[in-house]
């Protein structure tokens, strides 16, 4: 029994390390490509439109409604303690430090990660990636780099949008619906939110963008077994990316808290 447990734990850890290795290899190839191959601006712009521009609706709605409901719940709890005016600060800091980056990343891994994995996976099983190679085009240059760059450029912006809308919606709900004083709400929010919170949000955005991009591309590139494989690739990409985002967010929060401590002191 013990042997069985050790064995399964061991093989899981091994598979995990192997997966990390594959991602690192892909990341290295991408870095090399960015350095040696000319950038394909047309493809990058198309991906920016697809990944960044068209993801806005999803991200904005997520941010707004999360901010609104979070503000309301915080108010319900704080109201009993007579701390109505602190609601703005709690909502803003949580959005900057945790909710904004994580929710944006989760929505992106669903919307963008899935489509990247499906598209690249289809190209893989229909020999289109081999056709690219046969025509002297490196698939990393053509397929991976534009998508990764587009994600890295647009995710921090989308995170900012998500946070902005969240704070706006939270403010409206607290002040218009629940009757919190506007001046106190804003004053507390501004005095408790610092540049460090903004930096943390952006750094998380960068990190999650890379994770979503490399996981989705990796799942696409290793697709095999025809239609069933193409069906599995996006599912895998979304599940893995979501879990990795949630788990790495925990560690990232602790790590970043060393450099960008929370609070005003």
């Amino acid at each position: 029994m013990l042997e069985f447990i050790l064995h399964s734990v061991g093989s899981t850890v091994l598979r995990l390390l192997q997966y990390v290795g594959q991602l690192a290899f892909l990341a290295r190839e991408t870095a090399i490509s960015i350095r040696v191959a000319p950038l394909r601006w047309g493809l990058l712009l198309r991906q920016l439109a697809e990944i960044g521009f068209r993801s806005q609706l999803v991200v904005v709605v997520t941010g707004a409604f999360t901010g609104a409901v979070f503000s309301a719940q915080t108010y319900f709890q704080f109201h009993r303690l007579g701390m109505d005016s602190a609601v703005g600060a709690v909502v803003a800091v949580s959005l900057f430090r945790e909710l904004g980056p994580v929710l944006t990343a989760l929505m992106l891994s669903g919307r963008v990660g899935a489509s990247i994995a499906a598209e690249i996976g289809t190209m893989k099983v229909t020999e289109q990636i081999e056709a690219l190679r046969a025509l002297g085009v490196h698939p990393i240059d053509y397929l991976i780099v534009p998508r990764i760059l587009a994600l890295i450029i647009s995710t921090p912006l989308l995170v900012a949008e998500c946070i902005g809308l969240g704070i706006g919606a939270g403010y409206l709900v607290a002040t218009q619906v629940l009757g919190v004083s506007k001046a106190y709400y804003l004053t507390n929010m501004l005095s408790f939110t610092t540049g460090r919170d903004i930096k943390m949000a952006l750094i998380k955005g960068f990190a999650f963008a890379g994770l979503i991009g490399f996981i989705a591309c990796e799942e696409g590139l290793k697709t095999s077994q025809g239609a069933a494989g193409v069906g599995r690739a996006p599912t895998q990409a979304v599940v893995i990316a979501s879990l990795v985002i949630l788990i790495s967010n925990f560690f990232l929060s602790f790590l970043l808290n060393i450099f960008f401590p929370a609070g005003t002191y």
Partner: protein
Amino acid sequence: MIYVTDLHKKLGEQQVLSGISLNITRGQTHVILGRSGCGKSVLLKHLVGLLQPDSGKIVIDGEDIANLRERQLGRIRKRVGILFQSGALFDSMSAAENIAFPLREAGIKDEEVIRQKVAEALEMVDLGGEQEKMPENLSGGMRKRLGLARTIVSRPACILYDEPTTGLDPIATDSINRLIRRLQKRLNATSVVVTHDMKTAFHTADRIAFLHEGRIYFDGTPKELLAAKDPILVDFIEGRSTESEE
């Protein structure tokens, strides 16, 4: 032009190629025959570095490509074009964009030049006027010919055809056979043609090789093949399965 020496390749559990040696002479058409599943496509993919051999050498124009990196292979692939058995068209691009792809990659910017070359290539494979069709709206045979147009549009010095005429009607087959001949004559292209089709084989070949059980079982001129008495070759040429008659 291409020298293959003692090529071995295992895919999964299966030893697909076990010691292929083959010389392909510049300017000639070398046909490769063999039963379905014997490794013809796998061999062809090795010749442009899409697969890396487990052991053995593949020398193209004096350069061993067996252990080149992906980026170094780009150079080779500008000279050696391959037509995939499946066509491997880019399904999100129109027919014209598929053919224009290698031209744009070669750095041609002038849209007028591209349009003209695309039209010319489509004409060559009897697909004149089909520029705007998407690959999914083409028939199997049309896709194959579109793939062929994409392969030849950049005029590579060596062209590898993986079953160029499978699934085509007899007339289209004949026109592709002639096209292969014409390209070889006019451009002095070196061609490797993988096929099951005896008509294609004898129409296009300067030499014919027969792949069997992972090795080159026979390599000679069409005349020598026709004169061969070996039962395996004779059965293949005459299209006889070895099962006993009922």
